[in-house]
Every structure is written in structure tokens, then in C-alpha cells.
């Protein structure tokens, strides 16, 4: 693999920790060129890598068809392309792969390369199982957010080589009518800490105790499906099989029974805390720490403890 490329979004001009780690990780393949397509502003001037990374700044926009992605296709032609799973990164990687008749593999937990062959572990069934596979042809790869970079070597920051900027080519068949960013709150898929709540909260008016705890922790809030179906909470907060899949360092589940479809969205969490007043709630079997108790009583106490100590 002589030429590797990374597609990553920036936030306030910076790459996510995982994208930085991915750049270091790709150095293990001893590439001769590393190209970063950074979607959004670029405010960094160096990256941890074995060789200087060429950076192309890509404007955010509607990258929604093979006509608009033409400029990107030219840039990554001949490269093996990687990204960390997100809505935009996976959409772009799959469009680019197919437009250039390449194979793509997503959901990657582990990947090695030798003698022209990739050996990959792909997570399936929402993390309940995995597949070991090999490929010699695929050249587009999406790594899961909880990909284990702990064996990464510490690499020195190298100054980046800014090359060019690009945007979607005109002639798209799609136009944006309105953008509704989620403001104020921490976006759920990126959050390192998450407090989730379910039907056990009984009423949307009771969410203050969940929000207070989340605020004291600096955590994002999540909910179970019935809670968003009942319109107690916005749809984008619903985690599980049919909602968002999260893999935070800490997930605190409050008044959630632990149905298998809910677990499917939170299995990837490193530490799971369950607070439920029913000692038989199935979620306790999947908890690191469990408290049998009433959310109305326990949550404010945890918040207070965090605020005072």
C-alpha cells in the first residue's frame, strides 16, 4: 500500500481523536504518501504521522451523487481510502467506492495487511458477533468508532502539507431547503459519556433529573424507543437496533428495562451502569454497576455528589 487516504470531518477546525489515531495507525502500513481529505475548516498545522500528511480541505456541502463527488474521485484515484464510521463518511466512502468500481468493507474492528492481503474482523449483529475475513481487492474501509487504537505507536507531530481546497461540483440534482443542527447539546454519537432514560421516567416532565445528571457529568442524553415514539424526547436521541448506536466510555441507563433491541445500540459502551427499581430487570445482567432503586431518588443524589465532590 503505497498511497493511503483518510476522509474525516473536522469540528471547529480540529480532527476528532479517533481520526488522529487513524492517521498514526495508517503509518504502520509504511505508506509513501498519506492524503487527508478534511471536510470542514482546517485549523491544525501538524499531525502525528510517520511522514508529512498532505491535506486537502473539502468544503462541507451536499456530496449526494456521483456527479458532485467527481473532484474527490480524482483526488483519491489509486489510493486505499479509510475513514471512521459516521453518517457522512460512510455515505461518501460508499459513493466513491462504487463510482470507481472498487469494493468497500464497513464495520471494521480490526485490520492488518500483509502480502497484498487484508485480514479483517468485521462486527456484525450489532456487536453480538464478528466475522473474520480476507480480501485482496477492497480498497475502501470504514472503521468502527470503538476501533482499538491502543497498540498505536507514539508518533511525532509532523507539519502538514496543505495542497488544495475543493468543493462539490455544480450540477447536483439536490438542493438544501433548511439545515437544523442540534445546538447546545453534545451530539450523541460522538459523546464519551451518555445518560439514557426510558419509560421508567413515567412523564416527559420528569426529564430534568436526567438532564441535570448529564450536565453534571458533561454527558449527552439518550432515550429508549418507546420514549421517542411517545414524543417524550426527540427522535435523534433514541438508541438501539432501530436508532443510534453508541460506544461511549460510560453509559448510564435509567429506568430502561434492557430489551435486546435497546442493548443492540449500547453493547459497544465500555462501562455500563443500570439504575432500575425492578431487581429482575434484564438490563442488570449486562451492567458493570447496578443500583436497584427509584430514579427520582437516585439521580438527584448522584448529581449532587458530582457537584459537591
Amino acid at each position: 500500500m503505497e498511497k493511503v487516504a483518510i476522509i474525516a470531518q473536522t469540528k471547529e477546525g480540529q480532527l476528532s481523536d479517533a481520526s488522529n489515531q487513524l492517521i498514526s495507525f495508517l503509518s504502520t502500513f509504511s505508506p509513501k504518501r498519506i492524503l487527508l481529505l478534511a471536510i470542514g475548516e482546517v485549523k491544525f498545522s501538524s499531525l502525528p504521522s510517520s511522514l508529512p500528511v498532505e491535506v486537502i480541505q473539502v468544503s462541507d456541502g451536499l456530496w449526494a451523487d456521483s456527479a458532485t463527488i467527481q473532484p474527490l474521485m480524482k483526488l483519491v484515484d489509486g489510493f486505499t481510502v479509510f475513514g471512521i464510521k459516521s453518517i457522512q463518511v460512510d455515505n461518501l466512502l460508499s459513493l466513491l467506492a462504487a463510482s470507481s468500481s472498487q469494493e468497500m468493507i464497513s464495520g471494521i474492528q480490526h485490520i492488518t495487511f500483509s502480502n497484498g492481503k487484508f485480514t479483517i474482523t468485521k462486527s456484525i449483529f450489532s456487536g453480538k458477533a464478528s466475522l473474520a475475513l480476507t480480501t485482496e481487492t477492497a480498497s475502501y474501509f470504514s472503521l468502527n468508532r470503538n476501533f482499538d487504537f491502543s497498540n498505536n505507536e507514539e508518533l511525532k507531530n509532523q507539519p502538514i502539507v496543505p495542497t488544495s481546497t475543493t468543493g462539490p461540483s455544480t450540477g447536483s440534482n439536490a438542493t438544501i431547503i433548511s439545515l437544523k443542527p442540534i445546538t447546545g447539546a453534545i451530539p450523541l454519537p460522538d459523546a464519551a459519556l451518555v445518560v439514557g432514560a426510558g419509560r421508567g421516567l413515567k412523564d416527559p416532565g420528569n426529564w430534568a433529573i436526567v438532564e441535570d445528571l448529564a450536565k453534571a457529568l458533561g454527558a449527552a442524553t439518550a432515550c429508549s424507543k418507546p420514549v421517542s415514539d411517545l414524543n417524550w424526547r426527540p427522535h435523534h436521541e433514541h438508541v438501539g437496533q432501530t436508532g443510534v448506536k453508541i460506544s461511549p466510555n460510560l453509559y448510564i441507563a435509567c429506568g430502561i428495562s434492557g430489551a435486546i433491541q435497546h442493548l443492540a445500540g449500547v453493547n459497544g459502551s465500555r462501562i455500563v451502569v443500570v439504575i432500575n427499581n425492578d431487581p429482575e430487570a434484564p438490563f442488570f445482567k449486562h451492567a458493570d454497576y447496578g443500583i436497584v432503586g427509584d430514579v427520582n431518588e437516585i439521580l438527584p443524589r448522584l448529581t449532587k455528589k458530582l457537584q459537591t465532590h
Partner: protein
Amino acid sequence: MKILVCISCVPDTTSKIVIDPSTSQISSQGLTFIVGPYDDYALSRAIELKESNGAEVIVLHVGGSESEALIRKCLALGADSAVRVDGNPTSSSQIATAIISYVKQNPVDLILMGKESIDYNSGIVHGLVAGALGYTHFNPVMHLDIEGDRLKLEVEMDGGKMEVSCSLPAVLGCQEPIAEWKIPSMRGIMTARTKEIVVLPLESASQINIIKADIAETARKNKMIMAEDAEQLIDLLRTETNVL
């Protein structure tokens, strides 16, 4: 308008997944199969559009004959006809190639899929199909309306949502609340019996070699804390784990 809905047939969400030791692959014994939940949303919206705007709805599945009962259920829900590309695909690209080759011979205006299959969780078949056909692609789509010859969509983005308008043809990955899941009516079940399921051969090959499947065991600590000592949780999170 012709709408193609691509469905995956997957183990029921409550299935316990086990490995067959003789093949090192996931055993399909004792599993109940369902139409992928997101694909079910896509199909439900297609049927609503057929009822409100008039459309022909075709269901396509790439897989073995064991899926025919589920395909029949889609017909009972209101799809007009179905296509099964017969085989056992092992990669997203192989499935995408089968869909692309069908569409090249049988053009459609709109292709609806789920945002992801719940077995392989790749979330890319729609992007691969759109990229190869040069169609407009959006995923995951939460609202879909037809306005004249354009689509009006609400699409989830990383950190928000957007409303977009696009022309046809398009490929969309769907998720709730795009539609409500539907239950087939008695009349639907009766008429489905006479609807056609065309079987085509799977011609695309997989370039991926699957070596084996494994069950992921996440060991949890399972420590219980008494309600009266709830505050201890914060100390334990600080000392036993480094999450805080």
C-alpha cells in the same frame, strides 16, 4: 412512478446467535427470520406513496428460496410484484452488483432501502448502488414526500438534520419515523398468492473470503451497589474505571 424496495431477510432481533462448529459460520438453525426492520419502514413508505400518489412497487431480495414466505408477506402488504435474485451473497458489493444489474435492465424511478441490514450492519448497499448508477443518494432519510417531479426529504446528518429537495432517480436509505410498520390485511394475503415472484440467477461473485464467525462476549463486572450507598457509584467510576 416505479419504486423498487430492496429487502434483507434477517434473524429476528431477539435471536440468540450461535456458531455451527462444523462450519465456523453462524448457524441458521432455530432462527426465525424477518424482513429487516429498516427495510420494513422503506416498504411501508413505498406502499403509502402507492396509495396516495399512485406507484408501482416492486420488492427485490438477493437470497435463497427460504425467503419466499417473507417476500410473499411484502406482496400481502401491497407490493405489486417481487424479484428474488437466487444465491447466498457474502458481501455488500455482491448484493449491490445484483441490484445494479437488475435496475440497468428494468429502470425504476426510486429505490428505497433500509439504512442498514441488522445482520451485517454495513449501511452501504444503498450508497454502492447509487454510486454505480449515478443516482442521487441520501441516507438515513426520516421523511419522504413527493412534490411534483421532485422528492422532499428530511435527512439525518452527523449532529443534526436537513431538509432537501432532489430530482429522480434516487436511492434512499430509510429509517423511522418515515412510516409506520404495517400488518397485512386478509385481502392482502389472498391477493398476494397470485402475485408473481420472478427468480433470477445471482451472477455477481464475492471478492471477500469469509474465514469464520465468532460470538462477541463482553464481560461485564455485574457489581451491585445498595440504593442507600448510591453515591459510591461516583467513587467507583473514578477509582475502578477511568471513565470520569
